[in-house]
C-alpha cells in the first residue's frame, strides 16, 4: 500500500501550489490530505489566570536562594566605574608600559581571536539502528544537523563536528525517535527529568581540546 504523498501534493500542503495546478489524477489524494489539515484544532488556548502568580512565587523563591543570587551575579552584566588618580609623569610611564605590553602580548591575543573551532569526534554504538545523529546546544538540538555514519565495525556510528570553546550538551538521536545520552560521557540533568551528555572544549595553544 502506498503511504507517501506525491511531491506535488506536499507542495500543495506547503502552500506553494494551488489545487487547480494539480493534474487530475492527484486530486483525490490532495483532497484527502487537505481534509486532514482542515481538521486540525486551531482553537486559541488561554492559560489560567493564576499562572502569573505561580510563576512569580517560584521566581521570588529562586531570587532569594543564595545559589541563585551567586549564579546571577556571576553571569549578569553590570556597570563598573573605575577612577585613577595619577600624576602626569606617572601617566606617561603607564602609557609606555602599556605600549610594550601590547607589542609583546598581541600575538597571543591574535592567536586566540583567530582560533579555529575544535573538531570533536562523536562515536556511538547502536546495533540495529537505521539512523543516528547527534543533537545538542551547538546545533539548536536539531537532529537533522549532524548525522552519524556507520563505520566498518558493526553497530558503531561516528561523525565529526566543529565545536567552539566552551561546554556543550548533547544526546544521540536513534532512528529519529529515541534520544539517548552518551554512555561514555558525563551527564547533567536537563532540568526536565532527562539527562544530557556534556563535552567541554578547552583552550590549548593554537587551538582547542575536547575534555
Amino acid at each position, binding site marked *: *500500500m502506498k*503511504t*507517501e*504523498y506525491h*511531491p506535488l*501534493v*506536499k507542495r500543495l*500542503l*506547503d*502552500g506553494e501550489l494551488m489545487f487547480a495546478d494539480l493534474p487530475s489524477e492527484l486530486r483525490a489524494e490532495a483532497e484527502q*490530505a487537505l*481534509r*486532514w*489539515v*482542515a*481538521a*486540525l*484544532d*486551531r*482553537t*486559541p*488556548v*488561554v*492559560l*489560567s489566570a493564576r*499562572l*502569573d502568580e*505561580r*510563576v*512569580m512565587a*517560584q*521566581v*521570588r523563591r*529562586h*531570587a532569594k536562594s543564595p545559589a*541563585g543570587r551567586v*549564579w*546571577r551575579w556571576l*553571569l*549578569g*552584566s*553590570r556597570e563598573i566605574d573605575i577612577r585613577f588618580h595619577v600624576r602626569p609623569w606617572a601617566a606617561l610611564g603607564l602609557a609606555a608600559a602599556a605600549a610594550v605590553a601590547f607589542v609583546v602580548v598581541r600575538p597571543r591575543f591574535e592567536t586566540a581571536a583567530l582560533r579555529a573551532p575544535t573538531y570533536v569526534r562523536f562515536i556511538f554504538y547502536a546495533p540495529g539502528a537505521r539512523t543516528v545523529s547527534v543533537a545538542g546546544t551547538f546545533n*539548536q*538540538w*536539531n*537532529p*537533522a*544537523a549532524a548525522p552519524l555514519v556507520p563505520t566498518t565495525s558493526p553497530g558503531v556510528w561516528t561523525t565529526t563536528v566543529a565545536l567552539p570553546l566552551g561546554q556543550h550538551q548533547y544526546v544521540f538521536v536513534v532512528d*529519529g*525517535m*529515541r*534520544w539517548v545520552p552518551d554512555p561514555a560521557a558525563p551527564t547533567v540533568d*536537563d*532540568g*526536565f*527529568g*532527562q539527562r544530557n551528555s556534556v563535552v567541554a572544549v578547552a583552550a590549548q595553544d593554537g587551538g582547542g581540546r575536547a575534555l
Partner: protein
Amino acid sequence: MRAAEPLSDGEVVHAILTGDVEQYAVLVKRYRDRYARYAARMLGSPDAAEDAVQDAFVRAFDQLAQCREPDKFAGWFFLILRNRCFAERRRSHRDARPLGMQDEAIAGPDRSDRHVERAEDRRALERALERLTPEQRDVFVLKHVEEMSYEEIAALTGASVPSLKMRMHRAYDRLRALLKELA
C-alpha cells in the same frame, strides 16, 4: 500630558538583572499566552501546556543573564519552552501506547451531525500526531496550527528552510501511513 510608554523587553530584562525581580511579572503577562496553543498542540492538552509554560518561565528567569539579546526575549523564551516540550515528548514517547489505545475524549464537545465527520478526522489526526517525532510534530504545529511560513519558522528556531521542509515532508508521509492504519 503623554502617557508613559511601556518598557521594552530589553529595559525590563535590565531592570530584573539589576535587582528588580518584580519586573519579571511584566514579561510573564506579555508572553504567557503567545505560545500556549503551540505547547498545547505539542503536548496534547492545555493542562500540560500550562505546566510547560510555567516551567519555561521559571527556567528563563534562572538563565536570564544568558539572554544575549534582551529585546528579543520572546524568541529566546520560545526556544526554552520548545526545549521543555521536546523533553516532555521524549519522556512520554517511552511510555507511548499503541495506536487504538489512546484516550477517546480528544475531539471536544461538538456532537452535532454536521461536525461528526470533522470531529472524527480531528480525533484520528490527534492520535496520529502523537506518534510523530517531537521534531516532526514541532514543524507541523508551527506551520499548520500557528500558520507560520517556513522562513518565519527558520527565524524562530534557527533551523534552515530546506531542513524544515524535509522534516515537514517526512511528517506528511508518516501521518498518511498512521491515518491509514487508524482508518
